[in-house]
């Protein structure tokens, strides 16, 4: 919880998020048009999407399935009866003059989502509802001096509006909520979560109150399109509201727009100017009745979700909570890790994936798990060489760098560079015997009680072997000879 210390005392922020998530589906919510991102303007528009006279919507079953799966992934109640209503308003990129949405009877009811916070703690946030609705088209105001252009590719695309309860208390929690929600949606394959392409957008509801007081008046900041901007807009709006409240003013219930480039926000419309959407059940569509057996079968087929996977990684692999959380944030990463951990030391595997591997990915622009020069098999091979004593952990880092640069196997690089660890007792004994012979003074000191000198002996052996000696064995042999 973030408490803002004002001049007149502490303030607590209360945050609720409405997320619009574009559903991954074969076609739009009520038409057969395609939904690919980045297509030529108006190339993915059916007669229904353009609201030609006499056109009728027909529900896309896949969109319903995706909404149900998402609801199940949020541990939410699936409403077997739901209803589409018309939300009436005029805008040039809203061809029907209404958006088909769900109002009184959403397809998904209350659920929960568990946030993973920076300090490794978790926090539960309630989901109020999830409903299906159509997206609008896009108005382009910068293409002509006096006219606006309309692109209807997005018109009719399926959105899930996921509404949280006002359970968040800081920008950090809002960020954690969005990251977790995105992770769940991606695990489920119901939304790609790409905020920069607009397939996930958030409306931020925020109010301030004295700790323990009832809820204050909230504002809604619309259509914020990155997690960072959501957090910035929260900080900004919280400070704005506190400044007003501290001056004895009141907060207007209004809709605001956040300008990320300027880091400012402005009022879009007040409560008085709010639309009367004249919702009513869409007479072109029958109520949506979902079969309970279908929901059950979808439930059975759900993938393992991040929370369950995290718990399993802790139980099965003995990973600490932080490592498990990092590894499961993304389904591909988790699978990558599991491939490596299988039959190997899981903690060693986790250290390598989170440490060296993520580090390399981060500093290599455009690299990801699928195109990286080192894949799971190669990284596993490297870890195997550490485990069987062929190379030391330190050498392994050098080998990994070479693998990343060349794409070659660990074995080939070890061979090529002659990095193979000397684990041959005879060879090491020869080096050690020579060392003892050449340095009687040090031997005497050591045997006289200066046991710290063992480090010096090890260092000399490593020096003599260009670092290839197996340090464990060197220690062991030295002690045997000197003690």
């Amino acid at each position: 919880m973030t408490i803002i210390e004002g001049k007149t005392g502490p303030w607590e922020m209360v945050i609720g998020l409405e997320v619009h998530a574009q559903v991954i589906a074969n076609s739009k919510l009520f038409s057969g048009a395609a939904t690919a991102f980045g297509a030529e303007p108006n190339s993915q528009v059916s007669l229904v999407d353009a609201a030609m006279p006499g056109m009728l919507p027909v529900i896309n079953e896949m969109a319903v399935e995706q909404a149900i799966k998402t609801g199940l992934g949020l541990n939410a109640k699936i409403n077997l009866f739901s209803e589409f209503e018309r939300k009436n308003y005029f805008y040039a990129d809203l061809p029907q003059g209404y958006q088909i949405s769900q109002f009184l009877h959403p397809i998904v009811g209350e659920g929960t989502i568990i946030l993973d916070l920076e300090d490794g703690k978790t926090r539960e946030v309630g989901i109020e509802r999830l409903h299906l609705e159509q997206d609008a088209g896009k108005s382009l105001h910068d293409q002509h001096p006096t006219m606006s252009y309309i692109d209807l590719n997005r018109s009719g695309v399926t959105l899930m509006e996921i509404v949280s309860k006002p359970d968040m208390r800081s920008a950090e929690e809002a960020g954690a909520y969005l990251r977790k929600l995105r992770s769940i949606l991606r695990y489920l394959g119901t939304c790609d979560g790409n905020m920069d392409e607009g397939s996930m957008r958030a409306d931020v509801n925020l109010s301030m109150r004295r700790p323990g007081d009832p809820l204050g008046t909230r504002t809604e900041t619309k259509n914020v399109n990155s997690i960072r901007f959501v957090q910035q807009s929260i900080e900004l709006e919280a400070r704005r509201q506190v400044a007003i409240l501290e001056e004895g003013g009141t907060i207007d219930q209004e809709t605001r727009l956040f300008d990320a480039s300027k880091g400012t926000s402005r009022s879009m419309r007040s409560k008085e100017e709010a639309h009367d959407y004249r919702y009513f059940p869409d007479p072109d569509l029958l109520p949506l009745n979902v079969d309970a057996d279908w929901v059950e079968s979808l439930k059975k087929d759900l993938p393992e979700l991040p929370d369950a996977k995290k718990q399993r990684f802790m139980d099965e692999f003995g990973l600490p909570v932080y490592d498990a959380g990092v590894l499961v944030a993304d389904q591909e990463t988790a699978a990558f890790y599991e491939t490596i951990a299988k039959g190997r030391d899981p903690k060693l595997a986790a250290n390598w994936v989170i440490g060296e591997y993520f580090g390399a990915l981060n500093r290599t622009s455009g690299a990801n798990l699928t195109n990286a020069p080192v894949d799971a098999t190669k990284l596993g091979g490297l870890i195997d060489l550490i485990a069987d004593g062929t190379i030391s952990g330190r050498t392994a880092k050098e080998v990994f760098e070479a693998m990343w640069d060349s794409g070659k196997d660990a074995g080939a690089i070890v061979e090529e560079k002659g990095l193979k660890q000397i684990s041959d007792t005879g060879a090491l004994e020869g080096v050690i015997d020579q060392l003892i012979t050449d340095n009687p003074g040090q031997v005497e000191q050591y045997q006289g009680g200066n046991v710290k000198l063992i480090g010096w002996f090890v260092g000399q052996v490593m020096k003599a072997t260009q670092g290839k000696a197996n340090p464990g064995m060197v220690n062991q042999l030295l002690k045997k000879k000197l003690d």
Partner: protein
Amino acid sequence: MSKLTHLTLTEARNGLAKGDFSARELTQAHVEAVEVCRSLNAFITETPDQALSGADVSDERRRKGDAGVLEGIPLAIKDLFCTQDVLTTAGSHILDGFQPQYESTVSANLWSAGAVMLGKTNLDEFAMGSSNMTSYYGGVENPWRRSGSNEPLVPGGSSGGSAAAVAARCAMGATGTDTGGSIRQPAAFCGIVGMKPTYGRCSRWGTVAFASSLDQAGPMTRTVRDAAIMLRGMAGHDPKDSTSVNTPVPDYEAAMTGDIRGLKVGIPKEYRIDGTPAEIDAVWQQGIEWLKAAGAEMVDISLPHTKYALPTYYIIAPAEASSNLARYDGVRYGLRVPGDTLDEMYEATRGEGFGAEVKRRILIGAYVLSAGYYDAYYNKARRIRTLIANDFKAAYEKVDVVLTPTAPSAAFGMGDKMDDPVAMYLNDVFTVPASLAGLPGVSIPAGLSGDGLPLGLQLLGQPFEEGTLMKVAEVLETAAEFDALPQIIS
């Protein structure tokens, strides 16, 4: 060959099958009849070239042995159905120049059954009206006149152009749409048969929407058998309309056995309304006698919520219309009147594009859906609608069909009632309840008023029992021996 236009659709079908005449000859006769009757203003768009070339294709199909159930039959299409590459106006200025890239399911079904299109018929703007006077393209004249009077009369509405075209022998049949009586009332005013099928029987895809939960397409013809043949060609499940019902379309003609012995006919007491002209009651009584004579049993029934039907309808239909008509905004098709801002463009376009009646209903509809009034109006109307449907359900426990008058009067003068919307809305008093309940209904010409105008009787049926309705309607038709002709062709 002009006599060809006096054949019924059934007779023409049989004549074509026997080779007595070709589709080309039949169509040519109707194309000429359309020209002769232009003074009625029944058509917004005539498509003679399309008709004749369609007839040639039809003759070719018949030669190959591929004749459909409506092969070679020339029909008129209400201008609410979208027809590919043919101007489609909905009787509104706002659809100026709109040529759809697609064909409505109902008209497409008719063409694949072999029918030929003569043109697009006039209608009340967006099917909102009971007189055809609200059309941007002007009112339609009823082919009938009162005895000894030359005053032009309305054909009823909203399918007024279709009714006039069929009555004037310009078309063998025409499509109509019925939201609250828009097929049945003009059929009654023009002395023809008009059937509104069960909601969901005909696809709404490609038909300009007025009130989605009520709109239903149906046939307008000169005989009951003609309607049975035509409905079979129009109806059917359509996956593109979620409210279309997936049950097979029966051969309605097969149901028309003429035998209604033992059939129970409900006579609802609530349809006896004070102020209804005596001749309307008389024709109703006559219908009762005819059905009794044919062996049917009359049962007095009560439909207690009938008196709420009209106000309920005039809340639900405008509510849906206010939303359905939002798409006519000048952005993508039809009329655009420029403005300096988007809002100004909307205001100018919709202000100029819609007529007074459409604006009235949009305003009523927006009002009854608005915050603070929704429960008092729209929601209450929805609940009453359920009660009205339950009235019929209870009645159909006891009876097979219900007999009522179609309209509370015969055709009235062009321009009458225009300053009194409520008086105009009262035209629908007998047709609206079945619309709200989604039930099928048919109007049959049953006799003439004292001054020589057609009067209709309405039969209402159970869901998807159009066949039973056709059977009873044909018995009434036989008994009525309605053979009077409108003045324009007699």
